């Protein structure tokens, strides 16, 4: 079945190319990707959608299994049940752009899309938990410092 994420093997190949970003991560670390439309998160109500998702959406999970990140598709029924450390909520056009760039600089594109608002980003763990789980390199690569951003 075709989902908003397209071919998962292309995502897997992208993650494999950036394996060094995940090399310090603990097994079981999980990152989730949901499409805003697919998750019921409507414009202007991102957080409401996160909480009251109808359960019909898909989530692409990246899970560290001791030797790198592995992608798989799961159903998404709200962030409380997603069991992820980080959750990316992407606009449909952002996802489409990402799908097309999976063979190129996809992570740089994610960084750009977060800054432009095409991808929303939530952290489900605090900085010490994320540091302990080995997320620092990945978050730094996305330009998401372990700091407040009062500026």
């Amino acid at each position, binding site marked *: 079945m075709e989902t908003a994420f397209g071919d998962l093997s292309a995502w897997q190949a992208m993650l494999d190319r950036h394996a060094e970003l995940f090399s310090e991560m603990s097994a079981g670390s999980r990152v989730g990707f949901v499409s805003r439309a697919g998750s019921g998160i409507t414009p202007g109500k*991102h*957080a409401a959608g996160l909480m009251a998702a109808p359960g019909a959406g898909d989530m692409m999970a990246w899970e560290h299994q001791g030797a790198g990140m592995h992608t798989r598709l799961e159903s998404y029924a709200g962030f409380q049940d997603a069991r992820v450390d980080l959750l990316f909520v992407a606009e449909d056009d952002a996802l489409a752009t990402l799908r097309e760039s999976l063979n190129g600089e996809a992570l740089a594109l994610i960084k750009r899309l977060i800054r432009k608002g095409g991808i929303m980003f939530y952290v489900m763990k605090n900085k010490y938990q994320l540091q302990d789980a080995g997320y620092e390199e990945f978050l730094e690569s996305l330009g998401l410092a372990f700091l407040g951003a*009062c500026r």
Partner: protein
Amino acid sequence: METPGEQKLRHLFRPGALGRFETRNQVKYGACCVSNYNARDGFITPRELARVRVIAGTGCGIITNQGAYPDPLGEGKAYFRQVAIFDDKFLPQFETIARYIHDAGALAIQQILHAGRYGGIDLGYCIQPSVVPQTLPHFRPPRELDRDQIRAIVAQHADAARRAIRAGFDGTEVTSFMGYLLANFNSRFTNQRSDEYGGSIENRGRFMRELIDAVKQATPDSPMLIRLNAAELMDRWGGNSEEECFELMQQAVDCGVDMISVTVGWQEAPESSFGRDVTPGHWNYLSAKAKKLFPKTPIAFGNRLPDPVMADQCIRDGIFDYWEVCRPLLADPELIHKAREDRLNEVRPCIGSLNCLSRLFRDLPYTCTMNPVLGHEIEPEYTVTPAVAKKRIMVIGAGPAGMEAAITARKRGHEVTVFEKSDRIGGNLAAYAANDLARPQDLQSVVAYYQVMAAKLGIEIRLNTEANAKFMRSVLHQYDVCLVAAGARTDLGAFRYLEGANLLVDALDVAHGRIKPGRRVVMIGGGKIGLTIAETLAKAGHEVAVIEEDKRIAGDVMPTFKWRHTAWVDELGIRTLTSSHLVKVTAEGAAVKNVKGEETFLAADTVLVSSPRKPNHDLFHEFQWMVDELHGAGDALIARGLDAAIHEGYRMGVRI
């Protein structure tokens, strides 16, 4: 009788009114951020009292004391060493602060700060109207407040206000800035409740209205101020629109608040609200709108508005009533006095580096790049006192370290001569400023300040004079002290065994305008110097690639500004190769190799080197036996940057 400055800035210096009180002018010291100078349990320390005494004396009509958290659990506590006001045991120090402020002739306002989404620093969780996950890893996972907790928090605010008034404060301020609990209730982003506190804007504003009502009932004779967003900059995340922000302000006005302090942005907003990349005056339209909508409520404003002349014009034009100023007064606590005396050219400028906030989010006490004394007011060693033994001091280098030392030493009565090998003061800072994409005027104002102060204090500056051993022999025994502040240079020698090393060009020569690079440029070094020059070149149309040995670029950049460089690099299309080093230079370009051993050839007309940098240690060895006292300061000791240069220069000047 009016002073010259008061004549020029009539609107700023005219008396004002807040509730039943008069204020001597239209300047409000804003509690912009907490100092982190206090005890972990919320008690105010002598270090803090010494700082507040200086702030009290700034000459502002209203002084707002830094935000205190009102709850015993510390759910409202945002910062590592934030002060507390939930119990009478804290009263004595608040009484001292109120007395300091009154003794200095200002109105004393105590801010109550419940950080909500950004709080709970000691608890591992934060409280919010709804469970909305964090977007920044710095903050803690949320818990949703129930109605009883909401009522308790309202009561805690009222108690805190009552306590502040008992301590001698004239009024209180509740703040939503920048995304604290009040903002969390007001905003659609964080308030997803379905009860009477959520949903419609009327319901979302209920917490605020109850808060205002409770505080006003608790302190009926005292003005109550409120800090509210005119723009959250959280629209993309589903936050309030500007229109909604002003609707909420209307609710506060209808509740009878005595002043609205208009603010901009949340901590997690994706764009800057007061960093160096924001043009001064950029947000004035928001204040103007508030003033227009609520003409009978005093409006205070100061977001990215560091200039008293601009503030005076804004008051004249009805953009706001009170200039709310904080960071410029951290940089120079004499700012208002200098403005009154028409000595604005002597103001030590706030350059918006946000060193203060960078440190705060590392749980460190805040400091100021421009003011080395901030946080050390209690230490006599930081006070400029007349020198017991007057000395003749030669300072080598007219960069920030040298000029800071020269000015401080001269104030103490020493005779000071500065020797500078180039034809201007400012050192590499002047070149760096010229290439700054954010706002060159900020850094250039530092050089201008040094120029003015050197002239005022009668410091002799000998330009085009290189200090070397031969020169030192020519001035032998004329000086008692030599301070080497000759900075650092690009270490081209580090590449001397590299093939094509003779083709490398010092990036600082480009920064100083001595060399024009070709169209295609490779920059070795992705630190602040390399990036700043690379960005300027890219903006001017050059094709630029940056090579950095570290895993990431901008490693030496202030945390609050790092994102700015990475965004520019992205926007300007600068190619970056990290974890890579230079292996060969040819007339056609540069070959680089990454940690995996993969080699890439980058076509280039010019290969610039900005890193590594080497401190100017040679002079120490050359002068060791030629002068009584030999000292060093700034990058001449270890290559770092502006903060270290200014702070070390000052510390040398105050001690020699």
